[in-house]
């Protein structure tokens, strides 16, 4: 008993005070920004980007695995900032482009989902389907409910059955062998429901996009409500994305 009390005293209060505005370590590669429009840099970076995320003058956050090669080689053009607020409600706004007129780059944004906000603002139940994920996004999603990040304080929880859920949060590129299970789980969730894609693999196939063991056909027919980039998606990104969707972020 004394051992337990000693351990508890040293454990203290562990929850991050305000996850929506937390400070993250400066070494964290979060939201990237394009610093200038340099065609040569983009061309060169595009040739070694492992997932083809770098285009002519754009960086696709949905494909980016945050390997950091582009910023290491071309620090004058690409910068990754310690900003975990990367989620978006539309796939197009994940593509960061250089805007010649304003001389800056675009950034992803989440639009509040009005129907979801009306029903689930105080109680949001998620159901996870891991379909070919490498287990990193799954561990981060699990960590979002742990004693440090504690997304349960906002009423967001991961539930045990699709029948109890409001949203399906997908991790992984959707392997062929999991496609059926994924579809069945989606159908088992009662309306109103939304689809959330968590991690580069879920959004675009990530490093596995060229594999013939994955099948994203059914997923292409769906309209996800939220995309959370990352490889893996950091728990703060996940929580911020979910709260933005519910309209609870100022």
């Amino acid at each position, binding site marked *: 008993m004394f051992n*337990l009390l000693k351990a*508890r005293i040293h*454990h*203290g*209060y*562990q*929850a991050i005070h305000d996850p929506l505005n937390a400070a993250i370590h400066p070494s964290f590669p979060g939201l990237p920004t394009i610093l200038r429009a340099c065609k040569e840099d983009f061309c060169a970076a595009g040739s070694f980007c492992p997932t083809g995320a770098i285009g002519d003058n754009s960086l696709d956050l949905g494909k980016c695995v945050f390997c950091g090669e582009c910023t290491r080689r071309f620090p004058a053009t690409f910068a990754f900032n310690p900003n975990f607020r990367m989620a978006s409600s539309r796939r197009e706004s994940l593509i960061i482009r250089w805007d010649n007129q304003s001389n800056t780059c675009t950034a992803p944004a989440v639009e509040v989902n009005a129907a979801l906000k009306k*029903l*689930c603002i*105080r*109680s949001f*139940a998620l159901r996870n389907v891991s379909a070919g994920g490498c287990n990193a996004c799954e561990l981060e999603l699990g960590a979002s409910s742990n*004693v*440090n990040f*504690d997304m*349960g*304080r*906002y*009423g967001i*929880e*991961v539930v*045990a*059955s699709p*029948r*109890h859920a*409001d949203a399906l949060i997908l991790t992984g590129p959707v392997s062929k062998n999991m496609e059926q299970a994924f579809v069945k789980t989606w*159908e*088992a*969730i*009662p*309306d*109103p429901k939304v689809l959330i894609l968590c991690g580069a693999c879920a959004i675009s196939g990530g490093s596995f996009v060229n594999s013939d063991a994955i099948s994203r056909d059914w997923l292409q027919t769906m309209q996800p409500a939220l995309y959370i980039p990352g490889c893996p998606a950091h728990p703060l990104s996940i929580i911020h994305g979910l709260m933005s969707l519910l309209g609870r972020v100022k």
Partner: protein
Amino acid sequence: MIINFLFILLLPLLFIGVINKTKAIWAGRKGASILQPLYTVIKLMGKSEVHSHSSSHIFCWAPSLSLAATFIAALFIPFGAQHAVLSFKGDFFLFMSLLALSKAVIVLAAMDVGSSFEGMGASREISFTAFLEPAFLLIIGSLAYAGGFGTLGQLFLHHRVYIFNEWSVIIAVLTALALFIMMLVEGARVPFDDPATHLELTMIHEVMVLDTSGVNLAMVHYASALKVQIYASMISYFFIPEGMHSLSIIAVYLLSSFGLAISAGLVESLMPRYRISRNLELVIIPLSISLLVLAALIVHNLGGI
């Protein structure tokens, strides 16, 4: 009477909220608000339902019947008031049967779905009930008979903790302990079951409602919270002296419910869950206690050894 209804409607979900908050505080995090179970129930009422192909009409009406039975059973217990809403001589038989009916229909619904682990959860739940019901009947029946009273309400009026009468203390403490254990079992709390578990093969109560959705799920959540609150109320009434002013009764009742919720939360935070095979051994404890209570009553009423 209004107090009764008000508390029956509002307190159960708050009770669960306090248990969860206690767990969160011990864990060192903020945790969901005390009103979270209420928010969840309200949200679920706005969701549609999905029914499995293998389930029948039983699955549709079982949760409503379960809630109705539990609700009527709650009316026999005084919830923060001097008297219960309903009472008549021998009403504890009906009370027990209503709780049993509530459980039976949920078990039927679980088996109706045809899933193997829902069937396992149902069989585990029934095996616990097999030991708890006789214990409950024995305790309440012997208390009622020994006191010469017929109704549950009167029983609570009479058997309070008299500080200067050691037999009453023994009987009250033993009964409270037995009821506390029954509360943990019926409410599917640790160490008998883990309400937060994500392991479907270890679930007892949660697995039975794995396929329920929407309004039915809201009813199931509320009904199980109400069951816990029923037991908590019974324990609370052992601490309310006879002839108290109605406002004081409310205060003591709320305080003791709060204390019981915190105790349940602490038990849940500090004790690990027992193996299911061992749970059956533990569930016999209320039965043993009820025999002790009977013995104590016999000794007390026959004027000592």
